[in-house]
């Protein structure tokens, strides 16, 4: 196994992550990308969602991933959360076996272990992250139970604590989120993702679709969580405002490739790549 030396403080190292939808052909990578303005291979119609994406995520930092729809942002987090099977690439998690095993090549059961114990995921659509048929307490319980916590009172206590954290009144604990507003569902989803104290949290367009005042609350929550719990986060968004407020560093994704990366304020104020300049200048 190829063991990459991880820097001190680096919790997740991803190298050459690629994801292709479709059968693929030898020309896929050469005929797609930002220079072609497309990620669909003209020869075989496969979609190159991600090509050779590499990055490091450090302890306690919020790393932003920005790009337009179809740039591969969601594929990236979904590959990391194993919702999608990465086509190729390597990933090392400092919390898993001291970062010695490529997480993309682990058997399903071990991937599930990582998912259940070491990661939290917040989807854009709360329907994906929550089970609306269960109560909000039950949703949080699910995450704890998959992380092998089988003590009922402990689960209840942790549920209350998390709902308080995410500013959901305690009496909603035994209510089904089906009846909640979008912003509240999103907060329950965040509570669920945080339930087992994951060192890594993946957030996919979490504020998209929420109205501005709710959006502000969710952003504030995320920022506070990062400050207090020192969680490493990957924040995916097409909204540069969100990226500016939350992240320290940002990667710009275009047609499945990283075209630019750097400190967030540098990306926003002194973008180097043509595409980033376009993106920044179309910001409201």
């Amino acid at each position, binding site marked *: 196994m190829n063991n990459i030396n991880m820097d001190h403080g680096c919790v997740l190292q991803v190298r050459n992550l690629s994801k292709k939808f479709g059968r693929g052909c030898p020309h896929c990578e050469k005929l797609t990308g930002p220079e072609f303005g497309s990620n669909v291979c003209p020869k075989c119609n496969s979609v190159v969602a991600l090509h050779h994406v590499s990055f490091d995520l450090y302890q306690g930092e919020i790393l932003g991933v920005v790009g337009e729809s179809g740039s591969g942002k969601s594929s990236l987090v979904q590959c990391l959360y194993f919702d999608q099977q990465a086509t190729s690439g390597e990933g090392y998690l400092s919390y898993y076996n001291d970062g010695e095993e490529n997480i993309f090549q682990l058997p399903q059961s071990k991937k599930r272990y990582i998912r259940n114990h070491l990661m939290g995921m917040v989807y854009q659509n709360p329907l994906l992250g929550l089970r609306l048929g269960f109560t909000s307490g039950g949703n949080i319980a699910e995450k704890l139970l998959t992380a092998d916590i089988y003590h009922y009172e402990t689960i209840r206590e942790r549920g209350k604590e998390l709902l308080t954290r995410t500013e959901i009144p305690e009496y909603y604990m035994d209510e089904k989120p089906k009846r909640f507003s979008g912003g509240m569902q999103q907060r329950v989803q965040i509570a669920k993702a945080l339930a087992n104290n994951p060192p890594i949290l993946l957030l996919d367009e979490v504020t998209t679709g929420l109205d501005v*005042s709710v959006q502000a609350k969710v952003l*504030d929550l995320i*920022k506070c969580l990062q400050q207090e719990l020192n969680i490493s986060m990957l924040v995916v968004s097409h909204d540069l405002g969100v990226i500016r407020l939350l992240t320290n560093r940002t990667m710009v994704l275009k047609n499945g490739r990283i075209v630019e990366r750097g400190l967030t*304020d540098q990306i926003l*104020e*002194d973008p*180097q790549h043509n595409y980033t300049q376009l993106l920044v200048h179309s910001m409201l």
Partner: protein
Amino acid sequence: MHIRGGKTILSLMDVSFEVKKGEFLGLTGPSGIGKSSLLKCIYRTYVPTSGDIWYTDSMGDRVNLVTANEHEILRLRKYEIGYISQFLHVIPRVSAMDVITGALVEKGFDRKESEERAKEYLSRVGIPTSLWEMFPSTFSGGEKQRLNIIHAIISKPRMLLLDEPTASLDPNTKNEVVSLILELKKEGTAMIGVFHDHDTMIRLADKQYDLKLEKTKELCV
């Protein structure tokens, strides 16, 4: 020098100067010459085309701010280098109190202690108690500006970059802000600042660098 939209804008050429511990350097020159750009280059918001910026950190190590990796820069920004911009970027719907407290908590201070200090600073720059729990977006320009200043100086950085910090303040508040900055300077913070009014600069700066003449001039305090 940096590039925007294919057009090359020459903004700074061959700038050289030095700032020592507890020293204040004022940048002068006609507008558009690149005073703010220079500050942003030091803060790495802009990527300098060439040259070196050497910074000696608290451990005594010399770091080149032009080539240091992002995490090194983030570490320095978190613990050592402060920057007062002309605008405050905060998450909407977070109270002024929480914004200031957050600046300390982020750097590892205890929440309670941070709140105490936040209160002290907020009252010193004359932000009325009634506004502490309000959202900064509802503040007047001057109040936002003061919030911005204390947000940057409350954690006592080793080096502070100031981009027209006193631009929209009335004389009284300006005095208070100046004394806060002087206090920090006395504690050993090195500072580089851009001012639109000459008076404030004279009161704060030990020496000035004229970007047009590319010369450093000592000022008598």
